[in-house]
């Protein structure tokens, strides 16, 4: 089964984010970049499906050439191939634009793909848009926020997390699935994998080659401001016998903050 996994390069979750007020962008200098954590669950799932059912796993990223590092990591974890769709723009926060690029790529290069795996959201933009938008553009079924996936030849069943319960969803293949934490435990790269990945070539596909109308490449999201929220200030800290501190705490919540 031909499986595509879409991975995005994002700042490490440890990062302290700084912004430039002139350009309304996140300052990249000093940041460490990783594969968006949910995309790792997607990749792991693809590798497990390949191991049990056979097939080919291709990792794909839309971005600048610096995204090659995370694609190499995907290869080191066990992906068969990788491809970079080279996009000259910085983060646009416009999920539809990314979805259109990916849709164009899939139609052109991977019309036979049976499973398109995503993270439930890219850490950072936190949009949770691209998987559903792509599913619509390609007229495919979608299941988002998936914590369990079972596949047969032409169909599958996925468990998706909702508030206080899970929805069991049956769907035909090909399909779009987005991964949630809990789906699996991603593996580490092996030394052998890292060495093999170094020798693999990663094709770089210029965005123009995908054949998307110029107007669809223009972002429809305009950033008007980007700010760091004011730091919270430390409040009161108390200590002493539990009965006394508990009494003070409840009094604070009830009388002062009036929240319970």
């Amino acid at each position, binding site marked *: 089964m031909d499986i595509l996994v879409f991975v995005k390069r994002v700042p490490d*979750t440890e990062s302290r984010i700084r912004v430039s007020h002139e350009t309304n962008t996140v300052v990249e200098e000093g940041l460490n970049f990783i594969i968006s954590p949910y995309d790792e669950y997607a990749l792991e799932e693809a590798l497990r499906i390949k191991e049990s059912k056979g097939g080919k796993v291709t990792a794909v990223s839309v971005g600048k050439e610096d995204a090659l590092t995370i694609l190499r990591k995907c290869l080191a974890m066990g992906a068969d191939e990788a491809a970079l769709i080279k996009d000259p723009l910085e983060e646009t926060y416009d999920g539809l634009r990314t979805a259109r690029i990916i849709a164009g790529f899939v139609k052109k290069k991977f019309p036979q793909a049976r499973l398109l795996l995503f993270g439930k959201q890219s850490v950072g933009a936190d949009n949770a848009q691209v998987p559903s*938008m792509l599913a619509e553009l390609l007229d495919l079924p979608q299941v988002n926020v998936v914590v369990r996936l079972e596949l047969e030849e032409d169909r599958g069943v996925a468990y998706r997390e909702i508030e206080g*319960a899970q929805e069991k969803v049956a769907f035909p293949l090909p399909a779009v699935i987005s991964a949630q934490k809990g789906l699996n435990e991603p593996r580490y790269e092996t030394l052998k994998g890292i060495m093999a990945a170094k020798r693999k070539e990663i094709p770089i596909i210029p965005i123009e080659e995908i054949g998307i109308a110029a107007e669809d490449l223009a972002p429809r999201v305009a950033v008007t401001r980007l700010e760091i929220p004011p730091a919270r200030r430390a409040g*009161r*800290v108390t200590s002493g016998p*539990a*009965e006394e501190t508990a009494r003070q705490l409840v009094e604070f919540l009830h009388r002062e903050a009036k929240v319970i």
Partner: protein
Amino acid sequence: MILTYVEIRDNKIKKSSLEVLSEAKRRAAELDEDAAAVLFGQAVEGLAPDLFGCGASRVFLMDNPALAQYSTQAYAAALAALARKVNPSAIFFPATSLGRDLAPRLAARLGVALASDCTKVVVKDGRLEFTRPIFAGKAVLSLTLSSLPQVATLRPNVFPLEKAAGQGEVVRGDYEPAAGQDRAQVVEVVGERGGELDVTEADVVISGGRGMKGPENFGLLKELSALIPRSAVGASRSAVDSGWIGHQHQVGQTGKTVSPNVYMAFGISGAIQHLAGMSSSKVIVAVNKDPDAPIFKVADFGVVGDLFQVIPALKEELRKLRSE
């Protein structure tokens, strides 16, 4: 017109949808437009008065057995058809698991951009400006959408719910379902934790971390939760990764972002990834035996102490409060 998609669960309108409708009404008034709501399902007409009571001047009703069970594809198709007919300037959804699944599919169907998980909406030069946390709240982004309708999901528990003695009109729509074999279908809802609130919906989140020492002790937090209305139990990633509680309870950058009235952290150190998910809570309280724990830097009220002593005492105090 600003259209609000209304989510129904257990034959009731979810509170988050009424919050969204209230916000739609406020912004629509500013734009000299009206607010309308969309009600999909089977035998849901009886819910329309609740929507008039939150500012809807029209309720677009699609009562159809084909819409009885949520299906992203069927719902997106029906909504898109409605949007093309009535031409709203904006469409709002609650940023719940349903809204986050449906809104992007609808936006793509209409060929428009989407603002996800907004915490503020203002009118600027006749258009909407949306503000939303990114990096789970480490930064805040404001944006406008150049495509119409302006589609957005609004975070639960942020926008005030406003009731008004309102009246309105029910507009019946028809829906012709397309053949459905190509669709994903919900076949079962499993593991329903009868009425248990999700951390994103709760007014009070009571979270435990590695300091809870083991899964059995999360029972203490559940007991606390039983004493506090509209509360839910949350957890740090350490607690989740140790298997003490399900990951749907995880708060933080790779868990859920919450903004309850009160966030209580028991035995949580306050790592940057955890803070990212709860810093926008209105009031934060923390109990930790380490006076230097970083959680105290963001807590409005901190207790330095052993949680195994403080929690029983807290239960006692809460019981007293309830009997007052």
